[in-house]
């Protein structure tokens, strides 16, 4: 597997992770709102804490991890393009 493909896989995984965390965060936030109005127990506070954790994780995935992975993918593509150009030059000078 090429390095750029590995980077692409990492980018895909962080996007999927971010989306999953975001979905979980929205679900728990909705649950917290519903529980706040329906019940008087502590349940809504737990759901609210959970939504904060998941939404923070989604934010971290999209705003911290994603740019790093994307940058790494760009570097990989540039490096592979350079290697390919070098190989082509070698091939044409050899023939």
């Amino acid at each position, binding site marked *: 597997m090429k390095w750029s493909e590995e980077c692409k896989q990492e980018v895909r995984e*962080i996007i999927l992770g971010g989306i999953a965390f975001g979905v979980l965060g929205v679900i728990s936030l909705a649950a917290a709102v519903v529980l706040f109005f329906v019940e008087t127990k*502590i349940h809504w506070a737990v759901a609210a804490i959970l939504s904060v*954790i998941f939404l923070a994780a989604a934010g971290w995935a999209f705003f911290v*991890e994603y740019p790093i992975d994307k940058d790494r993918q760009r570097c990989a593509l540039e490096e592979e393009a350079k290697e390919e150009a070098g190989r082509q030059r070698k091939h044409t000078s050899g023939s």
Partner: protein
Amino acid sequence: MLNEDQRMQMMYTGLANCYIGERNLNRLTSQLLTVVNLAALPILTASQASMTLRYFVFTIGVLLCVFWFFVNQRMRARINYWQRCLAKIEPKVEAHEIPSTVFRVFTGADFEKSLRPPRIYAVNLLPWMFAFLWVAMLVITLFSLERRVP
């Protein structure tokens, strides 16, 4: 003074050590967090535990799973980096060459086969599995407690 071959050999050994170290660290972290999660999960079902303790443990457990996911991501990026460095040192596959005639460890068809998903990503699924377990266990505990209360 080292000649080019000796220098490459030393670099290869050093990079291989870094690669092995990173992989071991990744496995060790996964093992440790698996043990921590498995040890803390029964607290949710313990009859003596108060609701506050259950909620606290649940929150910490979910937080650990989120942390675990990001740690895995970073570690895999570093493992890939060391692997790529090692692959660069190894002899390149030439168009006219029969691949099996040159000995390679970190490049070639056999190595790529070992990196194919889902085997390589199995460890990354553990945090999701445990996060699901935490939520499922809490929901089951809450329902069973409500049924018990008259």
